[in-house]
């Protein structure tokens, strides 16, 4: 691990260093702008920490190999951007189905398709939730600075280990290519969570029988538990089953594992919400424009607050529901896409507030002025509430 101290560090570097600090000792990746610096930093640093770096032939291989490494007991990570993330969708599902702890970083760039490879966007937000076939419960973090990339990469590993699933870090080109001050705390101040190991002897161990927290203890390969792991619907033994009941029990648990632990996982921040009647919702790099927009708008006399999800999924839906009922007239979602989180916000308000979108198609982030203009325009009744 790096010496504790204050560094001037690029976001991607901070992400790699966060991973190393979290105990990541296996990394498999395939270069892609704007995530490549994560790979490159790992390559430089892994000899020192005795990590295994694999440059795979593609993203399909990258994600498959981190799942394998995780079962070998390693903390494992991969990093990519939209196109590579799209290729990972099948094995993202395998990781979720087999409850394999690992971390996937997606540094978002302009899409769809090859799009704007070197420029910022936030178009993959809903993909992290719906991109793989079938129903899944996911955890996704959206940091806004190199410091948060460092901190939330550690947190992502901890959540992955604690809840046994691939956790996504949704960075964007702006955050990842920005260089800022990063405080690296002393080792003993960093909380590290490791997966629960079984306490039962092998003959009694059921690899998919959950504890009360809905998470089953995990035996690694080589631990002598003779685990069977399959992407097929499986019972508590891990054996495939074509029984509808087994399917229902399994998939419900996978989703409830996140839903019922949402209190523990969910993170969001609020700013100047007390007297607000309008809330901006923003995340990732746009959050940094939004926070300035709040102050600018307030100078102009608008009572604006800010809600910033740090976990995109689980989403702070109840908080929005409550805000909508407690006097917020309108929500303005600023995101670099044509509307993704805004659907969720609109749904959560249950019609009790109006929902507006400040869209942007990618390239740069919103300016604070642009957001304030939008607030003014809404105030003048010029913008129809968001309805696709």
């Amino acid at each position: 691990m790096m010496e504790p101290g204050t560094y001037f560090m690029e976001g991607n570097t901070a992400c790699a260093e966060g991973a190393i600090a979290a105990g990541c000792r296996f990394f498999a990746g395939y270069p892609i702008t704007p995530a490549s610096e994560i790979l490159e930093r790992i390559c430089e640093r892994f000899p020192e920490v005795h990590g295994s770096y694999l440059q795979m032939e593609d993203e399909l291989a990258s994600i498959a190999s981190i799942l394998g490494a995780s079962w070998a007991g390693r903390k494992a990570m991969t990093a990519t951007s939209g196109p590579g993330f799209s290729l990972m969708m099948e094995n993202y599902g395998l990781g979720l189905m087999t409850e394999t702890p690992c971390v996937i970083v997606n540094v978002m760039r302009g899409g769809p398709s090859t799009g704007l490879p070197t420029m910022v966007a936030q178009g993959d937000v809903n993909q992290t939730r719906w991109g793989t076939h079938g129903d899944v419960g996911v955890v996704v973090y959206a940091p806004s600075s190199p410091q948060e990339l460092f901190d939330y990469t550690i947190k992502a590993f901890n959540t992955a280990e604690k809840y046994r699933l691939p956790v996504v870090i949704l960075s964007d080109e702006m955050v990842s290519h920005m260089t800022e001050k990063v405080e690296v705390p002393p080792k003993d101040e960093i909380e590290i969570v490791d997966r629960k190991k079984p306490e039962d002897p092998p003959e009694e161990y059921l690899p998919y029988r959950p504890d009360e927290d809905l998470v089953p203890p995990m035996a690694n390969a080589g631990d002598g538990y003779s685990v069977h792991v399959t992407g097929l619907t499986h019972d508590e033994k891990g054996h495939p089953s074509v029984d509808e009941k087994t399917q229902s029990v399994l998939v419900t648990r996978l989703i409830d594992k996140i839903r019922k632990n949402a209190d523990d996982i969910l993170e969001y921040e609020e700013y100047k919400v007390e007297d607000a009647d309008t809330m901006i919702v923003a995340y990732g790099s746009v959050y940094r424009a939004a926070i300035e927009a709040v102050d600018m708008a307030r100078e102009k006399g608008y009572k604006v607050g800010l809600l910033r999800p740090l976990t995109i999924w689980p989403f702070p839906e109840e908080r929005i529901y409550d805000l909508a009922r407690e006097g917020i007239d309108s929500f303005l979602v600023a995101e670099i896409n044509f509307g993704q989180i805004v659907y969720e916000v609109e749904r959560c308000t249950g019609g009790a507030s109006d929902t507006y979108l400040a869209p942007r198609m990618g390239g740069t982030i919103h300016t604070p002025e642009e957001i304030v203009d939008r607030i003014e325009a809404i105030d003048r009744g010029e913008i129809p509430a968001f309805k696709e």
Partner: protein
Amino acid sequence: MKKEIRFSGFGGQGVILMGHIFGEAAVIDGKDVTLTKSYGPEARGGACSTDIIISDDRVHYPQVREPDILISMSQSALDTYVSELKEDGLLLIDTGLVESSREAEGLHATEIAGEELGLKMVANIVMLGYFTAKTKLVSKDSMEEAVAKLVPEGTEEKNIEAFNRGYEEGNK
């Protein structure tokens, strides 16, 4: 205090490095600082720039829009960016490479580097010294520390020399 600064030039002049050294020094000085750069599809060539926002408080919005200070090491960089400089902004140029119709200060960094110091490559560091003296945004000590830390191994001395040479010019 909050300033927006843009270092600009063409690829190969070490413009990105300038930003990183300055940022590093600002961190040593306890400032908040955000560095961003823009990328194009080309791996090489064309105008290139690094943007820095330095502030006593937290820097939120990370992008430079109207720089308070523009440093231009090449004509095409000047031409591209000068219109964005704040009205009362400060323009620093390599006077040997750049002609400006707008008021500017500067020195012939490339010549100083090449002829006086015998290493054309350090023109960017000469310019940094000049910039440090002119702006006093960060301390000289921190800049020297940052230079020593970030330049290629074995070239520290030469670069500190270059920095001081530029600093001197700036203080004239």
